[in-house]
């Protein structure tokens, strides 16, 4: 069975997006000090899943979130926390684009910043506040909020990368 040109482009595009997510996962969780400032590194998988969901839709967003979250959980405690979060982010961003938002730089920055902020606050709350770790608020301002800001600062680069892939292998006109 021969594939249509549009189908081939879709396959290349989605495979390339998956490869980008794999690469960003390795950069984010690398053993060295690569891309870290003062011990704080960006969570590149969040803007990657947001961008992929914005362009590919809610269903693809679910699976990109699942893939990215599974890769992240390998370096974390392995209890599916990151997979659950990124699946929800992928689905939510895909639905928002379908209903009330457009795909552009500003909406991506907004959604990435919100998602990384929610992740950092949630992680801080469950790992510092609920177990009553001392000086939790200092950790919030010294580590987790800078991490969210660093992620937001780098999210445009991730958006531009995903956008380049989408434009190169697009099969329909995008409204930006």
């Amino acid at each position, binding site marked *: 069975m021969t594939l249509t040109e549009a189908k081939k482009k879709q396959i290349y595009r989605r495979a390339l997006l998956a490869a980008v997510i794999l690469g960003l996962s390795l950069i984010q*969780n690398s053993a060295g*000090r690569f891309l870290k400032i003062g011990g704080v590194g960006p969570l590149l998988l969040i803007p990657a899943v947001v961008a992929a969901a914005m362009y590919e839709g809610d269903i693809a967003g679910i699976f990109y979130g699942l893939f990215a979250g599974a890769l992240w959980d390998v370096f974390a*405690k392995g*209890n599916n926390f990151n997979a*659950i979060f990124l699946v929800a982010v992928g689905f939510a961003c895909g639905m928002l684009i379908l209903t009330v938002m457009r795909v552009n730089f500003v909406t991506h920055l907004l959604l990435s910043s919100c998602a990384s902020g929610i992740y950092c606050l949630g992680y801080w709350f469950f790992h510092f506040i609920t177990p009553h770790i001392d000086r939790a608020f200092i950790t919030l301002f010294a580590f987790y909020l800078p991490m969210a800001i660093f992620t937001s600062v780098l999210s445009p680069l991730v958006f531009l990368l995903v956008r380049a892939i989408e434009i190169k292998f697009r099969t329909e006109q995008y409204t930006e």
Partner: protein
Amino acid sequence: MKRFYRRTGFKIFAVVMAALIAGSIISVASRNSSSPLTRVTGVVFGPASRLAGAVTNNLKRLPVTFRSSSYLKRENAALQSEIDSLREQLVDYEEVVYKNNFYKEFLELKEEHEDYEFAEAAVIGRDSADKFGTLTLNKGSANGITVNDPVIYGKYLVGVVASVTPTQCVVNTILNPSVNVSAYETRTREVSYVTTTNELAGKGQCTLTNLPAQTAVTDGGLVCTAGVGGIYPANLIIGTVVDIIDATLDISASAVIEPGVDFSQLTDVLIITEFNGQAKK
């Protein structure tokens, strides 16, 4: 609203979330503390993680060469080529020296403790979101690693295995407040336990806590594992006492400890998979 719930996307989302939550429950209940999804992903993408870890660890050792202007380029080309070759040999030499020192410590440890069974592991990743610096190592249950196996560097305690997949494991270091180690100070023989707080972990320190107010522990004392509880063997070095602090809420005291290991520089460690006195797995 009903249309939203009837959408294919929502149904897929619900199924995937249910499966992930079930996986979370399995990870909590299982002895490996890792979900089936994480185990499969670890096996499939493990080689990529190891490669990335090796690349980022070696980035700083890349020789940097500079080319002179075009006028001098021909004259200096031969010398530059020789310098590059010597630098590569120096990199290899430093790697050999490092490995030699590592295995020398391993041999000394094995001679002192014949009951220890080890697995050598390399650090291939660290979770960016974890402030306390968990380590991901390139050995897993396929190599005999299980949850609660102690991790060491030479004679120093690094931490404990927190979760395991077939090809990788995640380690909580002693700078994680959830890690508690029964310990004693070698000169006074006072026994308590080592833990840490958020503040101390930020400085790279931990504390031997619940000491009596009249403790004889002083700066410079060496703190080692006591071997109580069956998780950590006895006499692994945790660190050196740098300060004694009186508790504010009761009449106890605690000793601030500087660990013997620089966790940010760790690239290779040993996992003790078996030792005499280990609690049943």
